[in-house]
């Protein structure tokens, strides 16, 4: 039995989470409220004015229906002063609250310092709608301990046991310069300029306290986190992540995504963990691969996304079904079979992946792929064993290269205007 199963057996649930937050007026339901914004609408019909509540028991940008664009940044802290980190997180919280509700940083004025001061807000989002902007902030393992193991800011005693650098997975060709990080910012919006604006202004606030380590832009949401959204296609042309955990599936979210009050450490209750993997897709060789092989790689039909065992996209796959001969219809080394919960002790994850491209590489090939983001309740029991299995036996590995790796703890949501990112962590270590 996995750790997650044991937790289930002990009966932790959304109710427990609600109880932990007392009144529970704003709990995971915050996410439910957000989902309601798009009920009955196709994703392309997100209203430009869409806004998701910034304050709530959980951070936005996890169960929020996927927006069309991503701008992701990992930062390294440059200060050695704990108070400077706290001040930055407080300023980030206020700025994020403003931007996600369509307000410029510093209020409506062009500059709080007057005509001879630089504007508070960089300005490029001024005439744009909120576009469903969400801002999600996380803490990397190196915030707690540096690579030599030293406690940097008095936080080491509260480092979650599953928050460590991801291991080397077979076949990884990870570039450390685009991996890891002390902090992360995930900004998602239907307009890429709105997402870039959010990261740009938070980075500006961080100057002197933290510096950008790497960034990644994404487009074309390659996962669906709400039942109103059709499953998008990745750059291989296939639907992937059909069995994703949906924002409305509270039981699955409690089991597999949100850290429960009885989990350790306490300050992470209502939080989640983020696994990041930049997956370069070798599109040129993929495109000259036969449809037979392509469908065998995914275990699904390309047209409908139906499992090769039959049915439509949402039909439960039958991994044991055979045709002529003894080989299963869904190849045992297909992506579908290897990633399936039944191959992973029943474990599930919440995928929130985006496609990416960054022009071309030195060979003139399209530098593109999948910027894979997954949210889980426990990295050690959910993401890492699943990735290990995929890295060992997924037939898709032939056509991909894993180029970066990172893990972050996403603390709980901000309860109100006085709350700030990670307050519970810093208070627990005060």
């Amino acid at each position, binding site marked *: 039995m996995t750790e997650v199963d044991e937790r289930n057996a002990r009966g932790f649930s959304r109710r427990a989470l609600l109880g932990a937050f007392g009144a529970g007026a704003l709990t995971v339901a915050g996410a439910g409220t957000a989902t309601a914004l798009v009920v009955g609408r196709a994703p392309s019909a997100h209203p430009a004015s869409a806004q998701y509540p910034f304050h709530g028991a959980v951070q936005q940008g996890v169960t929020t229906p996927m927006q069309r664009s991503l701008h992701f940044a990992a930062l390294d802290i440059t200060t050695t002063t704990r108070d400077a980190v706290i001040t930055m997180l407080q300023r980030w919280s206020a700025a994020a609250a403003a931007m996600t509700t369509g307000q410029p940083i510093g209020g409506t004025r062009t500059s709080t310092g007057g005509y001879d001061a630089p504007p508070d807000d960089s300005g490029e989002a001024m005439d744009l709608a909120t576009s469903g902007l969400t801002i999600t902030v996380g803490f990397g393992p190196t915030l707690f301990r540096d690579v030599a193991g030293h406690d940097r800011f008095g936080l080491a005693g509260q480092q979650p046991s599953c928050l460590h650098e991801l291991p080397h997975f077979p076949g990884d060709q990870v570039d450390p310069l685009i991996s890891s990080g002390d902090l992360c910012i995930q900004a998602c919006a239907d307009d890429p300029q709105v997402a870039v604006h959010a990261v740009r202004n938070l980075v500006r606030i961080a100057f002197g306290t933290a510096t950008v380590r790497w960034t990644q832009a994404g487009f074309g949401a390659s996962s669906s986190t709400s039942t109103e959204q059709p499953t998008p296609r990745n750059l291989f042309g296939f639907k992937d992540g059909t069995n994703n955990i949906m924002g409305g599936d509270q039981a699955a979210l409690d089991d597999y995504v949100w850290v429960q009050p009885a989990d350790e450490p306490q300050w992470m209750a209502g939080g989640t963990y983020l696994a990041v993997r930049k997956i370069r897709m070798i599109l040129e060789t993929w495109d*000259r691969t036969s449809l037979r092989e392509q469908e065998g790689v995914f275990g699904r039909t390309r047209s409908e996304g139906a499992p090769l065992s039959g049915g439509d996209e949402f039909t439960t796959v039958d991994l044991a079904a055979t045709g002529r001969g003894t080989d299963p*219809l869904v190849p045992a080394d297909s992506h579908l079979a290897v990633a399936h919960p039944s191959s992973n002790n029943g474990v599930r994850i919440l995928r929130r992946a985006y496609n990416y491209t960054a022009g071309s590489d030195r060979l003139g090939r399209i530098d593109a792929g999948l910027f894979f983001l997954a949210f889980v309740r426990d990295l050690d029991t959910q993401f890492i064993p699943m990735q290990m299995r995929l890295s060992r036996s997924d037939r898709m590995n032939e056509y991909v290269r894993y180029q970066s790796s990172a893990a972050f703890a996403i603390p709980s949501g901000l309860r109100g205007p006085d709350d700030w990112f990670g307050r519970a962590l810093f208070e627990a270590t005060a």
Partner: protein
Amino acid sequence: MRSHRTIAPIIGAGSLVLAFALTACSSTQAGAGAGITVTSTDTECTASAVTASAGVIEFTVVNSGTQVTEVYVLGADALQVEAELENVGPGISRSLVAQLEPGSYVISCKPGMSGDGIRTPFTVTGTASAPATGAADQRAVDAATQEYQAYVQDEAAALLKGTRAFTAAYRAGDDVGARALYAPTRMHWESIEPVAESFGDLDPILDAREADLAEGEVWTGWHRIEKDLWPPAAGYTALTTAQRDSLAAGLVRNTAALVERTASLNFTLDQLGNGAKELLDEVATSKITGEEETWSHTDLWDFKANLDGAHRMFTALRPIVEANDPALAAQLDAEFADVTALLARYRDGDGYVSYMALTPAQVKELAAAVDALGEPLAHLTSVSLLGRRASS
């Protein structure tokens, strides 16, 4: 080692029935009946049209039943298989392409894959393009697969012989001699890589790169020895004599096992076509990037071996390709010649210059040539099997 594919087990012998025809007809000529839907239910087999014009006919097979189904296009005797599609799951649609001469045929659906099938007659009208004889077809297929089989066995034997000499030098501490034998010996592996990799148990212990392993796994094989012969400048502990002995013995033992297994392999046309494509993929993804030979930088030797292996598969199939699509055969001749000539510029003595000696512009030029060959080469399987090329 990258591939997780297995040329031998992927498609059992004869699972893809050879419906190609050695005819002079144009491969692009579509029958007037193209786009016929065949619906297979648990009890019925229906076609949206019962006649079509001779040529390439595309059937869309729809499995509306509850069981896995198969669809066959049979000759008038209901025995000769002209085309077949198997393993169609319930609810799934799939394309079945057949090249048919005028005459009477039977379409047979076999839900549940048992019994004689549910049959419906089908007529192809028009003019015969050229006489096609099934016996001649089979002779061409046998010639192609036997030619390739002989090549594989020759290469495997050369690999084992070379491996013995290489490991003897390595065990004796003759690093200069071992380094000189490393790349030329490995060429015999790289030339038949899709076959070598098909043995999923042997491939990782013979050809894993360091990055292919998870933490704590034991690293053996060619690339482990490669690192010991071309060690990093700092932070590397040379292997002991006992460790060398063990690695060398394993390399010989497992190579011998591989050679033994290749003796009993039988190949099908699609394996040859797909294998050639896989070899070019290997060049495009692992050799042109310099990621295969991290320590020795002998990637261009591997490049040459992959290219030769692909060319041998094409050569074996060439009479069939020439008959079905002469333009493709000519194009592949030209593209193979281009890549070969380009690669020859980097010859150095009996071998090739180090990958590290290439400029970015030279690497890019090689990559472009590989892509130029890879695209037409990807049509080898369908042209060999069906005499039909995807529209492009």
